[in-house]
């Protein structure tokens, strides 16, 4: 066991005691209905292991975890929505490495296993790489939502390439409709939906290697390739005819309200690009698969970059080591842990050993197929970049860009904020 300064005396005593039933605290970003779901999954673990498990959620997870870790009162297991934050905490010695063998297990059992290992491997206090995070629960972001019945009324087909998608957008405009609903508003996080757009378009215009270089800043943010991806986003978001409410409404529309335009009468827009969680914000009674459906945000046929998928996920890491925490990570490896949440809905997983008939609905199963069929899977870049960029200047820069600022100028500003962090 790695000795950790931040551990309270009580926790050390607990960890070293050879007790079977222990208290295990889990801290994560889920609240409301999601919290009930994660509690049900943890209840299954509690029943199997005999440990006493409790979960607490927070809407300000990113700040709270730092306060708790600094003060030494962190929960045993913390669920990070952003690997960047976990890497930062590992470097400061706040995370305990996972047991040996976990790496081999992920490589073997997860689709694109090595990329999940890489995403969970960070340098510790002394600079040695170790596996700290276990991915459980994944989101797919490369989805375009639409109303099948509106498409049917207008006689539109699902586009399978980016060229077709653009042609469809023009077609909708020619028919007097508005193709897209785009909303960037999200309180203090305003701008993040645009970062997903740019990342998706980056994957569709540049090679995965370029994407990785961009994430690590080996390729500068103001590189022409990145600027081109931002302008590609502008082709959608800064085109008055393309966006419901006009380009001026993009930055001020709340991302939670923007998909509602798909279902209004008359329809404000026909398509909405957003991650797999968005049905939570559809109007009450909307059934996914019937009233609303989605298709894969297509790639360019001419670029031959395959079918890249952008995603995100939550990373479970041990912030206050005890035996129960390791038991929990072992439990998360079992197909049962994945299938329990799958049955409760809203859960995707790269685990290859699961029974896909256990998905709560067909829509989720279809999403998981998109995930498993990806030729390239890349994690949300803004979650991997340092917080000051990925959860700061990238967001605000995108708001500026949507407001009419020049793409090269915005990119240069984001790069200079990145330089300032080094």
């Amino acid at each position: 066991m790695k000795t950790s300064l931040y551990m309270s005396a009580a926790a050390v005593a607990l960890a070293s005691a050879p007790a079977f039933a222990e208290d295990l605290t889990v801290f994560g970003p889920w609240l409301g209905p999601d919290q009930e779901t994660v509690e049900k999954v943890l209840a299954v673990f509690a029943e199997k292991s005999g440990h006493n498990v409790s979960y607490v959620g927070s809407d300000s997870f990113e700040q709270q975890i730092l306060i708790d870790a600094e003060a030494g009162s962190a929960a045993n297991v913390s669920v990070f929505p952003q690997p960047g934050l976990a890497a930062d905490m590992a470097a400061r010695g706040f995370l305990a490495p996972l047991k040996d063998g976990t790496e081999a297990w992920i490589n073997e059992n997860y689709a694109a296993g090595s990329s999940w290992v890489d995403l969970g491997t960070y340098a510790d206090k002394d600079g040695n790489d170790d596996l700290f995070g276990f991915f459980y629960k994944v989101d797919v972001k490369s989805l375009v939502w639409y109303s099948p019945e509106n498409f049917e009324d207008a006689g539109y087909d699902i586009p399978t390439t980016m060229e077709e998608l653009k042609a469809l957008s023009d077609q909708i405009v020619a028919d007097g409709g508005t193709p897209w609903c785009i909303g960037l508003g999200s309180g203090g996080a305003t701008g993040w939906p645009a970062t997903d757009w740019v990342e998706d378009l980056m994957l569709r215009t540049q090679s995965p290697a370029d994407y990785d270089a961009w994430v690590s800043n080996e390729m500068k943010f103001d590189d022409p390739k990145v600027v081109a991806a931002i302008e590609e986003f502008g082709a959608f978001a800064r085109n008055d005819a393309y966006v419901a409410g006009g380009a001026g409404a993009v930055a001020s529309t709340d991302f939670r309200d923007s998909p509602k335009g798909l279902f209004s009468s008359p329809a404000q827009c026909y398509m909405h690009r957003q991650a797999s969680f968005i049905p939570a914000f559809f109007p009450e009674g909307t059934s996914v698969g019937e009233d609303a459906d989605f298709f894969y945000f297509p790639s360019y046929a001419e670029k031959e970059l395959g079918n890249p998928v952008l995603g995100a996920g939550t990373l479970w890491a041990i912030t206050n080591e005890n035996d129960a925490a390791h038991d929990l990570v072992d439990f998360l490896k079992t197909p049962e842990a994945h299938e329990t949440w799958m049955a409760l809905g809203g859960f995707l997983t790269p685990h290859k050993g699961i029974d896909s008939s256990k998905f709560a609905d067909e829509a989720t199963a279809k999403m998981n197929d998109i995930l498993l069929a990806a030729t390239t899977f890349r994690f949300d870049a803004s979650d991997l970049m340092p917080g000051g960029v990925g959860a700061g200047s990238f967001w605000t820069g995108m708001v500026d860009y949507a407001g009419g600022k020049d793409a090269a100028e915005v990119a240069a500003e984001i790069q200079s904020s990145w330089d300032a962090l080094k």
Partner: protein
Amino acid sequence: MDNIAGRKSGLSWAVNLSVIFLVLLWLFPTAGLFVSSFRSSDQISANGWWQSMFPTEQNVTLRTADPDDEGAQELVDGLYTVRGNLFDGEDTADISVWGYSSRAIDDFTVGQTAEMKDGETITVEANGDYVWTSPEKLTGRGQRVFATATTPPKFTTENYGTVLSGSGTDGAMAKAFLNTLTVTIPATIIPIVIAAFAAYALAWMQFPGRAILIAIVVGLLVVPLQLALIPLLRLHLGIGIGKGYLGVWLAHTGFGLPLAIYLLRNYMAGLPKDIIENAKVDGATDFQVFTKIILPLSFPALASFAIFQFLWTWNDLLVAKVFLIDATGQTTVMTQQIVELLGTRGGNWEILSTAAFVSIAVPLLVFFAMQKYLVRGLLAGSVK
């Protein structure tokens, strides 16, 4: 005299008007919040609260009964027919125009029959009654009807149910309410007791360094409490208090003390010197002067500070999160409970507005019970 009287009345008009303006300025958003708390989230995103109190014309998407349901369609004169009401008989909305395609939502007036593809027809009446016919057996989902309808105002108390009963475990809000009281009451009383003693000493007892001490207390007023969060939490964990009620009481006491001492000292220093000197001449000790003279006279200041401190601790989320709410989740306060109701990505405005009215109830009671002291106390120390 006329002149003076006229000027006076003109001025009081101005005062009255500006008071009315300010009251409206404050009440207007509150009223909006109150109305919103009785609306569902879809209603809130559809139109503004000011429109909700009158019948409004809205574009609505409705759907006929599912023809695959048993008994939904019957064979009438060789046509498969589905009859029913688009509003399921619940609403008393009034349809003016309608259409069957999302691209032409106002093609037909009520009573007209629309010809759709494959020989299907549909007729919609103003009250939502419809007849949908087809030469072939109908399959698939119910036909969508886009109607422009005047709907009466509709309110719901569901939000209050959600907030009061909590979405997850039963009684979570009741527990949070008790937890909040457990935090607030001691966190109000402890600083008042300490501050009253300190204020008396700083106002009426002679000792070296008194002026410096007062200056330090005033200086502490401008120190943001965020600075102290992590060092204090470390201290608490280091000396074994950990996260819990004792820790949050101490923290609230510490953060409240500078203002309390400053407010009470200024008030006490303004009390007539003669009474205190007389008491001293009669042989009263400092403690007797404090308990028998100063405390009763300072009641307005004490009460007003109590209101301040109570409101601040009642509404507090930050200090509770740092010093109280531990990873077991057993010590949730109301503010935290409300945040949890908002969900992972927030945006449940209807819950937010409802929760505001639920959590405001106790502070309102406290305020009305003690408000006559508040204004008196607000002036504490400002007039010599």
